[in-house]
């Protein structure tokens, strides 16, 4: 598609939320929060269902009124402004196409309501339809369209109005996997061409990281972290963000302060920060390396593993130290370009390692496992990130 040829304006409007809160009776859907979406930015709101992300989007759209706080779009405060007067367009999860209207009338409805002169209305509908390759479907009703086609009509209905801000409420969740990927790319391309501000809601963290220029992670009505996908993934502000983003999920190990002042748990004893008595060590599956039994020095029953381990996504800097603990392989998932090695450990935990498909391990094998400490994370008892890299203060034998 080539939406850039539609002749739409290419400047978006910024969206600013100041102290916005939304309550439904006693239920707090959105805790007081500040959020800024920059002009022309594609911001993704992500979180588990019920976290308030859709409510936040509806607050921006004007479909809900904030209990307190201010909503600004561009230079205008809009929290008392009707949705139709906010210069926003929205694509709904169910597409919300008017079932009794043809595709052409669906596309033109917003313009008709605004009293756009007929020749201009027809021109814009035709241009949008051409850009989205809907030209042959204009006389059909939504019931006669496939899921993907409906999705495009919904997108077209938003585009045709040339809004300052596009709002997407989980628009891909009703598509099959292949179409979802394609549409995701199309939305990204649309954003590159239009340069319009877009706010995109999803519960899918992969979608969020791949689509968003910045990502806002929400949980239980609270904004947990706002940042670039890289920041969200590599420097999660808290345990929730660390656990929510990434698949398979980040590996965790609860730690508590031992007599020697170290944070200990399972096979680990860390020279942790002075503060908390309890903490959680979190390591991404690609930041632990498994050395197969054949590659380990000595058999599974004895000695330190000092291996030429096959690193996960290790950068080869030598920062992954072999033999942090030993464990038994529970299960191996071969995914083609990589494999996931499920471990019976460390301690009572069950960690997963992402490994090269070249690694030869089988269930029941005793393996040596190393942690890339400089890429691991430590979270305090309140779940907040503890700054600094956890360092092993001495190894316990598992």
């Amino acid at each position, binding site marked *: 598609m080539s939406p850039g040829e539609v002749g739409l304006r290419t400047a978006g409007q910024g969206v600013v939320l100041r102290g916005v809160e939304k309550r439904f009776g006693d239920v707090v859907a959105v805790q007081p929060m500040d959020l800024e979406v920059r002009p022309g930015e594609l911001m993704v709101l992500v979180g588990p269902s019920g976290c308030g992300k859709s409510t936040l989007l509806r607050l921006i759209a*004007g*479909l809900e009124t904030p209990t307190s706080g201010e909503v600004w779009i561009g230079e205008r405060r809009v929290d008392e402004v009707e949705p139709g007067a906010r210069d926003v367009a*929205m694509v709904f999860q169910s597409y*919300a196409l*008017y079932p009794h209207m043809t595709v052409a009338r669906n596309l033109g*409805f*917003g313009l008709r*309501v605004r009293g756009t002169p007929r020749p201009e209305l027809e021109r814009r509908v035709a241009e949008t339809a051409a850009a989205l390759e809907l030209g042959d479907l204009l006389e059909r009703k939504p019931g006669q369209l496939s899921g993907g086609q409906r999705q495009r009509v919904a997108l077209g209905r938003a585009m045709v109005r040339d809004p300052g801000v596009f709002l997407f409420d989980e628009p891909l969740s009703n598509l099959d996997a292949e179409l979802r990927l394609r549409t995701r790319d199309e939305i990204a391309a649309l954003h590159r061409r239009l340069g319009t501000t877009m706010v995109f809601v999803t519960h899918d963290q992969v979608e969020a990281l791949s689509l968003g220029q910045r990502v806002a992670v929400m949980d239980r009505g609270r904004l947990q972290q706002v940042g670039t996908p890289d920041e969200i993934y590599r420097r999660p502000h808290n345990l929730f963000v660390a656990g929510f983003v990434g698949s398979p999920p980040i590996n965790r190990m609860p730690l508590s302060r031992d007599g020697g002042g170290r944070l200990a748990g399972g096979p680990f004893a860390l020279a942790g920060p002075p503060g908390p008595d309890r903490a959680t060590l979190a390591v991404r599956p690609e930041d632990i390396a498994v050395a197969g039994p054949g590659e380990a020095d000595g058999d599974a029953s004895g000695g330190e593993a000092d291996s030429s381990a096959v690193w996960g996504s290790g950068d080869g800097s030598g920062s992954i130290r072999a033999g942090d603990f030993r464990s038994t392989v529970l299960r191996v998932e071969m995914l083609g370009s990589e494999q996931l090695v499920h471990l019976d450990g460390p301690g009572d935990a069950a960690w997963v390692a992402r490994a090269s498909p070249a690694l030869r391990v089988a269930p029941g094998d005793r393996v040596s496992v190393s942690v890339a400490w400089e890429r691991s994370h430590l979270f305090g008892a309140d779940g907040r990130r503890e700054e600094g890299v956890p360092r092993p203060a001495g190894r316990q034998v598992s």
Partner: protein
Amino acid sequence: MADHGIAPRMARGLLLAGACLVMASPFLWMGLTSLMGQLEVFSGGSMLPRVPRWSNYPEALTAQPFARYFLNSLVFATAVAAGQVATSATAGYAFARIDFPGRNGLFMLFLSTMMVPAVVVLIPRFLVIDALDWIDTYQGLISTELVSVWGIFLMRQYFRTVPRELEDAARVDGAGHLRIFWSVGLPLAKPAVATLALFAFVDAWKNLLWPLLVTRSMEMRVVEVGIAAFHSTYEINWPYQMAAGVAAVLPIALLFLFTQRYFVRGIQLEGIR
């Protein structure tokens, strides 16, 4: 519990046939009586007319100005149906979709009026119409029939099934309540509108009591009142009355043939009438 055997199917068929006969017998009786002579009705012999007297029909329908009655019935029933659709659709939409203070309380109040038997409000209605000097006029006949709480309930329930996202989409598109009602809600509520219009029309068509009360002249009479008029203090002309009855039922029967599915839908909602 499969009942695909011959015996259960036959039993069910017989039961249904019996029920059909019970339902149809008054109509059959009406049809047969309409073809009898005046004395033959009471002869107590066969239920079948000895010689069908087709002339009963033209005679009955010209004994009184039935053409005028049919026109009056048509005006009355059409106006009532149109009026009830207009009031029920707008009120139903408001109750379903517009948040206003006291909405639920007001709706319960509306519903509670369904518990008041229609006969109880007959006299107050008559007094109002009389005070307005509308006795024996179309406006007197029609005006108090224009609102149906059942219709409001029906439309409200239907509007509640219209996905809210459609309304949200229309709001973001810039539409207000009236526009959403007209362009989105009402077109989607067509089945409910058809059901309501049909039931309102049929109810008005067969209404005897109210037209009997507020009409006096022959010019304002409706068909039902005309049929009742064959039933005077000293004489009952059964064959004529039945012939006029058959003529009055025919338009409704025809309507039913073409709109059966809306009738069925209405009957599914009938539990609350």
